């Protein structure tokens, strides 16, 4: 049906990933006390970006076929 759902998911997760990574880099590290000292924004941002990239890749491949 017209739009491959993996494309919007890929875009959304990539945007979220980039937002979290950038914020994780810039943010005051004291806010990570509550997340057990882990920079969860940075780490989870990377995971989301990777997932988004995979979805974009699959979606683009699927649309071409």
């Amino acid at each position, binding site marked *: 049906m*017209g*739009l491959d*759902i993996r494309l*919007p998911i890929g875009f959304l997760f990539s945007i979220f990933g980039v937002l979290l990574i950038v914020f994780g880099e810039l943010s005051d590290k004291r806010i990570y006390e509550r*997340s*057990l000292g882990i920079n*969860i924004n940075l780490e*989870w941002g990377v995971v989301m970006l990777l997932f988004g990239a995979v979805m974009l890749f699959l979606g683009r491949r699927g649309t071409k076929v």
Partner: protein
Amino acid sequence: MLRTIDWTIMIVYFVFVLGIGAVLKRYVKTSTDFFLAGRSIPAWVAGLAFLSANLGAQEVIGMGASGAKYGIATSHFYWIGAIPAMVFVGVFMMPFYYGSRARSVPEYLRLRFDEKTRGLNAVSFAIMTLFSSGISMYAMAKLIQILHIFDSPFARLGLPQAWIFHFSLVISALVVLGYILLGGLTSAIYNEVVQFFLIVAGFLPLVWLGLKNIGGWQGLKANLDPSYTHSWLGMTNAHTNRLGVEWFGLTFGLGFVLSFGYWCTDFLVIQRAMAANSMNSARCTPLIAAFPKMLFPFLVILPGLIAIALPTQNLAHLAGGNTTIQGQSEGRGLIPAKMDASGQPIRDKDGAVELDYDLATPNMLLHYFPTGILGLGLTALLASFMSGMVGNVTAFNTVWTYDIYQSYINKKASDAHYLWMGRMATIFGIALSVATAYMATRFNNIMDMLQLVFAFVNAPLFATFLLGMFWKRTTGHGAFSGLLGGTMAAALHHALTLPQGGVPGVKGGWIATLHVYPSEMAQNFWTAIYAWTTCFVITIVVSLLTQAHEEKELAGLVYSLTERPTQQGLHWYQRPAVLAVVVLAATALLNIVFR
């Protein structure tokens, strides 16, 4: 509390939600496109939507609350109360739903039985969906208030805090309205898939941090009474486990009657499978959904368990500063006590403090998530509320248009007219949901009573479908009288029994109290068991007394008169039977591990 980054994440999400609807708008040309997504959805997309449509408020907040209250035994609602039914509907029932080309579950009843059975089901279902989506909206607006999400923007704009509730209701109604009007069921399904991934993305890091903090599953075990960490411990007797139910009531009441009644007959979920692009995709839809469903307890129940296992502490940091949270000193872990109007903790009849379990999951988010990912977590929470709402609205507009409007009000209009009617139904459906949400703020008792009535109507349903699909002798009169009889049996059983400590009234016993159940859950399960059995017996008896349908009318609707769907030319992983065996084996294994 929330900073620019959190707002950005939330706004990006809402832009995407509406954007998907806008992109899909040009594909909606006929009523089939609008109501059934043109029957063009691939199996995995339909599967995730099937799961997501059920993932409303009850799921994320409610399962976290139950996790904190009952422990890992809450997983019975998944491993006993969902997976077997999902497998059954995919393997055995979907051939009739999809194969009959019925456009809705009530329409299947029309084809299989008669007009009155369809009418009964369509009307009760339509009212129920509006009611549920209203409740979902109400819960979301309440949660937004409790979490103080809009407090600071409202304060900055000089608006009264009392408007937050109204604002939350209106904004969620408008977003849902927007994307359903634009893209119909396709848009709803696509958004449900996005919501599924978002919920996983929001809750996975929460569970990870929580488990890391408490020392994993072993740490949970060390910090909690064994009754929290075993799902089958003490299940031989209702008094020796946290749920207050014994194994028979659990497996037959929840695992068979209630769960099959929901997953196998509720158009809200079946609609997603009917939108699939082929018979095999439709059959695989609930099976694909069963895999993540099986693992969901770890995502939604564990936060509740962790919240109760943590040391009781000052919760001021959750409110973002110096305000004290009411009831924190009488609470447990991250869960505060419920307080009455005078600021005293509410106690049950044994004098124990009642905890506000619904705050378990939200407090976990606030406790572990720093700004940034907090925006993601809250967005996931809002997404779960919206997916529950949308599922109800799309099911409502279809049943209204096809089974009520087209069947009784305007039979011979053009397809374009029905498409227009579907859009109108979406608008007034959402308007009525908003009205229901406001009713919930005023008349809590009416809400409880309505919920009870729906439970009575739903309990016998599966007996009707089971007999209808697998016994060709079942007649329309049999089905109709069975449904009525089953509903009355449910009401009667409820009127004659009470849960322990309950006061006669909305909890039961409004005629007399002949039996007292150890818990409300046990009472519910047994109400369902009585309703189902009564419906089953009456349907058989009345069917035998009335004239049978002609066999040629029943081709494609009844098991013995329908060709088996072929599995030739499919990969092993596309075969429903193979998926079914794998998912059942994995579920059995989970039960053994967490026994």
